[in-house]
């Protein structure tokens, strides 16, 4: 199959050509605005009225896809092409039972009778390893988890034995541990059939592990194509290099390396520069770059859209900027430092509405135990990373520290003094010392106030300054986050996601808080922008010496940024360790799984991920004993199911692990499997 096209009106895709052979997996990498989504829709010929292919064509085998009429198109959709989409929940019809939605395919395409279609459905459900396929088949989409929904969609896609399978970020919205399982499942099923696969994602680690060839897209153009190994060890385009530099890898910490963000921004659709599209942001752009480069063959099946690719290949020029060295700062775990924040034995639960039946029978209210007996200490001037998947309670903890969530038990102490858990009872000084930056840039700022008006509020309200002084401070503040003074008059609608987060960060530090909480601040941003924000966070911390509670599901980012790391699962802490120790055994089994689930770019250190059975427990029904026991690969028996573990402290590293398994046992078996290069299997 081959593709080549440009798209309508605003050029979403410009002159992209590539081909995928049967049995090959082609990865397509790009950030937002790269055009990869449009490309996917175009490949499927599902652009609708919004876009069309203006030039070029897409060939499935020998068949030109542009030439197909509606009838033929539907035939093709039904028999040759399949999509596993990004958001499983909304891709399933909420009013039809899941089994029926799959059986439908067999009835229409294969003309099977109803009972036969049902059987086929159940067979496929088993193939995608859905637990209890019968029950799932009679369920509605909202009754099954995200991971299960995605398996259903995978079954749908693969059941027609397509010649082309398109995967559009199939695991982006799923938890990391589930992601690992699904990705391997997809890989396994693909290898059974000899189909061509187009794998679209922004995650370089996934590409490295599962793809045979990779195309890199930037702002509507294809800028490089190569084998993943070659691409990641020796990229031949400045953009690819920039991407690699901006992502934290295991082992890199903020003390040693500054991430290199790509300066500038991705151009808006249709507003690219003339000449090489990457020119405005390229560190090695020269005169000739004002001419648009074509895709140059770069030896051995490689392609690069850079005029200077040969120089890059020969290392004559270096696109990689040497990061400035940073004075290492001594960080001990609470040695002689005052504690900024302490949580002692904090538990939080949400009451549920009682159903009328229960009420009449006098049954007590059920509650969702969101957070269970958490102890945390954040020494001043340090960063604590809190890592967990969905439902872990990490955001709930953040909100309780900020006073937005009441706690059922326990104490929150700021500078050793306990503070009320309700916002309304806190005084202004306390408010000044605690600030937070939320996850979603779209909601972070009031769209009706200018940046300046938003930023001066903390000065006026929390620091009691008069307006004129506050305005002056606002300019300083903007500088501190590397925005020009002109931004003060802009509205949030005019800013990019990265700029909004900077402003949010500025507002967070305006009052010079003692503790700044960052709740997934970069998850919604493009990869190349994330690095800039991370750097900024570090810089600000060096200036103000504030403590940071950094919450994320991304262990790699936390590994880069945090001094101490706490791992939380379904409301209970599982492990607390220094950054330098977390990635070495002994690990808590959950931490072990988390670490192994992250796809690595560097193929040399890749290892098989550990698969956790089952799903994240429903917060209403948290397992007894150790909450992790239902999925723990190192489950040792009844004690895990019945008794809550106790905290074990590793004398060498002061690491704390919440597990029944003795530390020496963990250490020996985990050290061994790392050296084997095999996972737990």
């Amino acid at each position, binding site marked *: 199959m081959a593709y080549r096209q440009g798209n309508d009106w605003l050029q979403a895709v410009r002159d992209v050509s590539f081909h995928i052979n049967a049995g090959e997996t082609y990865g397509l990498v790009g950030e937002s605005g790269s055009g990869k989504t449009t490309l996917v829709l175009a490949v499927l010929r599902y652009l609708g009225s919004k876009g069309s292919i203006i030039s070029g064509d897409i060939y499935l085998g020998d068949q030109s896809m542009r030439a197909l009429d509606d009838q033929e198109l539907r035939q093709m959709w039904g028999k040759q092409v399949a999509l596993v989409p990004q958001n499983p929940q909304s891709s399933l019809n909420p009013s039809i039972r899941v089994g029926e939605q799959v059986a439908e395919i067999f009835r229409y395409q294969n003309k099977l009778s109803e009972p036969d279609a049902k059987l086929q459905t159940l067979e496929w459900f088993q193939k995608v390893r859905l637990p209890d396929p019968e029950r799932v088949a009679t369920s509605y989409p909202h009754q099954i988890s995200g991971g299960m929904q995605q398996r259903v969609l995978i079954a749908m896609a693969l059941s027609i034995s397509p010649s082309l399978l398109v995967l559009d970020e199939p695991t982006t919205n799923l938890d990391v541990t589930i992601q690992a399982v699904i990705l391997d499942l997809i890989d396994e099923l693909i290898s059974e059939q000899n189909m061509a696969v187009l794998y679209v994602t922004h995650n370089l680690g996934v590409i490295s592990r599962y793809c045979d060839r990779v195309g890199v897209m930037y702002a509507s153009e294809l800028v490089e194509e190569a084998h993943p190994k070659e691409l990641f060890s020796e990229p031949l385009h400045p953009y690819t290099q920039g991407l690699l530099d901006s992502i934290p890898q295991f082992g890199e910490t903020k003390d040693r390396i500054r991430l290199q963000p790509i300066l500038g921004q991705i151009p808006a659709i249709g507003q690219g520069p003339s000449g090489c599209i990457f020119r405005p942001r390229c560190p090695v752009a020269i005169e000739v770059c004002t001419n648009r480069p074509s895709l140059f063959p770069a030896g051995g099946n490689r392609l690069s859209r850079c005029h200077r690719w040969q120089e890059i290949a020969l290392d004559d020029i270096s696109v990689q900027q040497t990061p400035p060295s940073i004075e290492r700062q001594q960080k001990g775990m609470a040695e002689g430092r005052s504690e900024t924040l302490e949580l002692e034995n904090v538990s939080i639960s949400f009451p549920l509405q009682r159903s009328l039946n229960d009420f009449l029978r006098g049954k007590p209210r059920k509650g969702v135990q969101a957070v269970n007996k958490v102890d945390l200490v954040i020494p001043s001037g340090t960063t604590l990373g809190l890592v967990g998947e969905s439902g872990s309670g990490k955001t709930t903890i953040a909100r309780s520290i900020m006073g937005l969530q009441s706690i059922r038990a326990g104490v929150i102490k700021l500078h050793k003094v306990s503070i009320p858990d309700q916002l309304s009872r806190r005084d202004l000084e306390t408010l*000044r010392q*605690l600030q*937070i930056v939320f996850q979603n840039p779209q*909601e972070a700022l009031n769209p009706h106030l200018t940046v300046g008006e938003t930023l001066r509020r903390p000065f006026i309200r929390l620091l009691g300054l008069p307006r004129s002084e506050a305005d002056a401070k606002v300019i300083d503040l903007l500088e501190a986050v590397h925005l020009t003074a002109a931004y003060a008059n802009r509205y949030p609608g*005019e800013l990019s996601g990265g700029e909004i987060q900077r402003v949010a960060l500025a507002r967070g530090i305006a009052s010079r808080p003692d503790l700044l909480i960052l709740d997934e601040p970069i998850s919604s941003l493009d990869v190349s922008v994330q690095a800039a924000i991370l750097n900024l966070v570090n810089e600000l911390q060096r200036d103000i010496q504030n403590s940071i509670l950094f919450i994320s599901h991304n262990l790699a980012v936390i590994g880069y940024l945090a001094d101490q790391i706490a791992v939380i699962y379904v409301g209970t802490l599982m492990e607390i360790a220094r950054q330098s120790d977390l990635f070495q055994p002994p690990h808590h089994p959950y931490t072990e799984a988390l670490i192994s689930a992250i796809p690595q770019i560097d193929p040399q250190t890749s290892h098989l991920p550990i698969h956790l059975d089952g799903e994240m427990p429903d917060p209403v029904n948290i397992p007894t004993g150790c909450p992790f026991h239902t999925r723990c690969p190192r489950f040792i028996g009844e004690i895990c199911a019945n008794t809550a573990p106790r905290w074990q402290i590793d004398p060498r590293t002061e690491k704390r692990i919440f597990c029944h398994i003795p530390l020496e046992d963990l250490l020996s078996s985990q050290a061994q499997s790392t050296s084997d290069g095999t996972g737990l299997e």
Partner: protein
Amino acid sequence: MNSISKSSNNSLGVVPSWWRRLLQFFQQLFSRPVSGFGTAITLVFLIVALISPLIAPYGANEIIVADARQPPSNEHWFGTDNLGRDVYSRVLLGSREVLVLAGFGTLFAVLFGTLFGLMTGYQGGWFDEITMRIFDSLLAIPALLLALLLLGTIANSKYSVLLVIVVIYTPIVARVVRSVVLAVKPQGFIETARLGGESRTRILLREILPSVIPTLSVESALRFSYAIFLVASLGFLGVGVQPPSPNWGLMVKEARAYVTLIPWALFFPAAAISLVVIGVNLMADGVKRLMSPDQID
């Protein structure tokens, strides 16, 4: 204020200074034929309502017996009615009745409704519960019925009609505003404002209210149309109005008995009502489309 440049990573709208925005808003209303037509009609009627005493050739109750029951002519553009009153003048002056009554009623209903909506939405708690229960029970009775019920028991005057409009429409507006407040409240910037120690008043007025305004505008336009509808219907039923008031609905009722003789006395007021209502509806629809441009339409 600034050039409208949207970057690809963001999709919040741009918000320039408020009066320019208002102008821009009207511009956009007029740019589409359907809503432009509606807005134009509404504006014409509003202007007529304001200046009607100046342009009406005859008084509302001026009886010219000799000219009774005349079809439209040069002297009486819309003819005369059963009693000899100039229909044209009555229609013009009647616009005051209907539009002013409906207008102010809507205005107050919107004001009170917004107030309640903001407070119940933001505060929650028992205040919210109780107020909403009361409003719900008011809403359980269809508008016209409630109006009849209230007017049936209190004095029959223009002011009672005004009061009734306010009582009937405040709950609906409150509900609508409340639901917007509830949607906006959990957003990041609101919580950050609370965490920044901002006073409740400031949060309501500066942070929440601006997000409420788009929905409120649409709702207000709709309410206005319903209010006109209500006043006209009440007039037709003979409730809340005293003859010889030039209320269009009443005019229709009075003319009904003589419809075979003087159909124009019924036609013109009815046409006026229809035109105004259609105009306001079209305008309201236009407002709605403007306020939610991402809606698939």
